[in-house]
């Protein structure tokens, strides 16, 4: 899941080297914190949050098999 988020982010930013994902894992939930280059923040959020929403939706689908709630935070 962490790898997937990293891969999705790297595919849409200009500075893939700056993409970092850290996971904070609880009993029932996982918080994934995505950080990208300040220049790329707009790219991972998108107009009206369209891209961020799409990323969250895909990550959520991939989290179902682990039976945990997943929260994706974009850090700036």
């Amino acid at each position: 899941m962490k790898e997937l988020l990293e891969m999705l982010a790297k595919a849409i930013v200009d500075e893939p080297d700056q993409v970092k994902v850290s996971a904070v894992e609880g009993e029932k939930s996982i918080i994934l914190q995505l950080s990208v280059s300040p220049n790329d923040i707009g790219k991972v959020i998108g107009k009206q949050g369209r891209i961020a929403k799409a990323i969250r939706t895909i990550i959520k689908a991939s989290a179902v098999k682990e039976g945990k709630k997943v929260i994706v935070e974009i850090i700036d």
Partner: protein
Amino acid sequence: MDDDKREPEEIAGSQSHRGSVSVGKTIRLLEAVIKQIGIDGKVEAFEDSEIVKIVIDSNGENPALGLLIGKHGETLDAIQTIANVVLRREGDKRKVFVDAEQYRKRRESILREIAERAAEKAIHTGRSVLLRPMNSYDRRIVHLELCNNKSVYTESEGEEPNRKIRVIPKEQ
């Protein structure tokens, strides 16, 4: 998961049926996505000069298929959104459509039916009919279905994500 450090040309040439570099890159990403969702399947692209149609084909029965499509196709739409971004970033201006298990085709026929029913109601009552909020892909299907209708016309109103179509009777 391996980092994407390879050159695009290498990726594009690594498998068959990969017309362009941009499409090859998109397919590779989607392959990784479906694998992570838990689906054993194939990702194929059919492209022409205007559109790229990507079809996710799973091997047999798979309980994870519902996950891939999501509620009202929301996961499929999300995958399609990302696929469009990746393609555009490669300088490819074509539009990408992503389908799995012929979901789009099934959805399209449902939307056409909704459109026709709304048109009938508008004609019958002489008043406009407001449909529930739809995304741009779904709205396009409804607009197209009714664009040649002699008795009604369609308009979109409201802001995303609550943009809706109004089916309006033409004045006779």
